[in-house]
């Protein structure tokens, strides 16, 4: 059997199609919005958010169980995750504002507080009187194959909201990302814009948890943006390219993992993303490491030619 019919055969599979669609939407949205985190120079906030989401998921599970008898309402879980994610950012920024702790330390404290709380609540769920308490671990390590049609609809809904938000606030987000002082002067208050922008990024992060897991979600935020930055100098280009990098890594990674069989999808996607970053750093025109080395060599040779009397 040659490669093409085998591939088409795979695409005919319903589960594979669902996973591919879900993963690529997540990859696109996280990649696109990751560009803003990158420009805000706070990419690692994505890591804090994805970990903090566990607290929201666990809390939402408990609340939903108490109200409806079952905790497995994906929409409730995702809303809880988003809320906890936003709170973890607000906490870290408040710490920086009200103490001498710098952002990196504040992020680490926020991570410990929210993720520690999340793990504690997970334990409460495990030992408590909750029906259908299994299945929440999916959000920690991610299991792309477990994505259902209902998950897919929610992923699409959150993705659309996040993208619509980004497009509607495009000018504000752009100005704020590049020059927050000017943005303030023009009348966009940082106190309003910052949480809006962060909340949009949070939406993109929480839908990825089931696909790659909360530990590896940071790769979807950082890697596509870092790669895209090497090829373009405009925000429009960066956001689009970053989204495309994220989506294509998700597709390629999922296919590799399906073909290889017993290999977890999330880590494979991350390795594909890393490869894209490596190629971009090396091969990008002008900025790339190869172009840079060649330019240096040429300049050195030119210099030699101009000044032959200089001893080598």
């Amino acid at each position, binding site marked *: 059997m040659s490669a093409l019919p085998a591939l088409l055969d795979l695409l005919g599979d319903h589960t594979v199609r669902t996973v591919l669609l879900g993963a690529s939407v997540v990859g696109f949205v996280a990649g696109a919005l990751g560009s803003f985190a990158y420009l805000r120079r706070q990419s*690692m906030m994505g*890591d804090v958010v994805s970990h903090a989401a566990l607290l929201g998921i666990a809390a939402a599970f408990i609340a939903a169980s108490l109200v409806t008898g079952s905790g497995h309402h994906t929409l409730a879980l995702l809303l809880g995750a988003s809320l906890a994610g936003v709170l973890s950012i607000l906490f870290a920024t408040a710490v920086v504002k009200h103490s001498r702790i710098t952002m990196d330390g*504040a992020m680490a404290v926020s991570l410990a507080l929210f993720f*520690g709380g999340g793990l504690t609540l997970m334990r409460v769920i495990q030992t408590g009187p909750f029906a259908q308490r299994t299945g929440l671990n999916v959000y920690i390590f991610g299991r792309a194959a477990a994505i259902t049609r209902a998950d897919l609809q929610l992923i699409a809904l959150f993705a659309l909201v996040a993208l619509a938000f980004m497009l509607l606030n495009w000018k504000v987000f752009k100005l704020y990302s590049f020059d927050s002082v000017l943005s303030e002067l023009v009348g966009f208050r940082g106190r309003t814009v910052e949480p809006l922008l962060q909340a949009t990024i949070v939406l993109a992060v929480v839908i990825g948890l089931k696909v790659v897991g909360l530990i590896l979600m940071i790769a979807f935020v950082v890697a596509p*943006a870092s790669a895209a930055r090497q090829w373009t100098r405009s925000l429009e280009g960066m956001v689009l390219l970053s989204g495309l990098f994220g989506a294509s890594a998700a597709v390629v990674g999922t296919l590799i993992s399906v073909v290889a069989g017993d*290999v977890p999808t999330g880590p494979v996607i991350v390795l594909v993303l890393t490869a894209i970053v490596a190629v971009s750093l090396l091969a990008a025109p002008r900025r790339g490491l190869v172009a840079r080395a060649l330019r240096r060599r040429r300049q050195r040779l030119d210099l030699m030619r101009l000044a032959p009397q200089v001893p080598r």
Partner: protein
Amino acid sequence: MSFVVGVVALALVTALACAVPGVFLLLRKDAMMTEAVSHAVLPGIVIGLLFVGALDSPFLILAAALTGLLVVLGTEYLRSTGLVEGDAPLGLLFPALFSIGIILVSQRFANVHLDEHVVLVGDLNLAAFIHLEVGDVSLGPRYLYVMLAVLLLNVAFVTRFFKELQVTTFDPDFAQLSGFSVRRLHYAFMFLVSITITAAFYAAGSILTVALMIVPAATAHLVTKRLPPMLALTAAIAVVGALAGFGAAYALDAATSGAMAFVFGLGFVVVLVATRMSAAVRASRALTV
């Protein structure tokens, strides 16, 4: 030594061993490096397990610490190229290394028994399970002595290089100008951090390691700016936090490392609020006088 006492002792020693280097990481604004290193050591641990077969072997800890150092060196190289801005270099390498680790684990390579759960939250009780026995007398968990060795190593390093660490932390440019090898000390220190994280990994998992390293130092930093009192306060907070966290976990039958991380975080919040309030009181008094 009874089992519970053994676990508490292990929690205490692990907290102290992490807290000491944490002070310098926080002051160097490199706190999130712990998050990167604590994930990056995973492939080193898995590959080490292939050859050594025991999680508490010093060789395994050294091998895995080298992977941790890889992420430090790689991140600093990426920063130096100037191609990747902000804190993005930090988030580029460790997910890849962690992914390699997870893939290796998932392949159940040569019977490597490493639960995904242990990776994340560690298992203090499991780490404290095998006791060191001389004759009939139990001397406590065997792993306690591994962590004790790491703690001593950290204390010895900080004591011996205190002045150097101080000057490179607060004024790296001055240190460099004084003809001081800032880089060599930095890499020695980061290797020590990596060793500490690897050793703590088994007992505490990757998340608690971040909490243990950074939160005590951050809490102490809320109160003082000076290095010697900050070190002492950090150690005290680590001890109190470890005891309180362990006690809370024990009472609530909660996951030890999660509850400990949470308690450390809560302690930070309490101290933050208290210092803010006392500052506000002082300010209003100053106004009325």
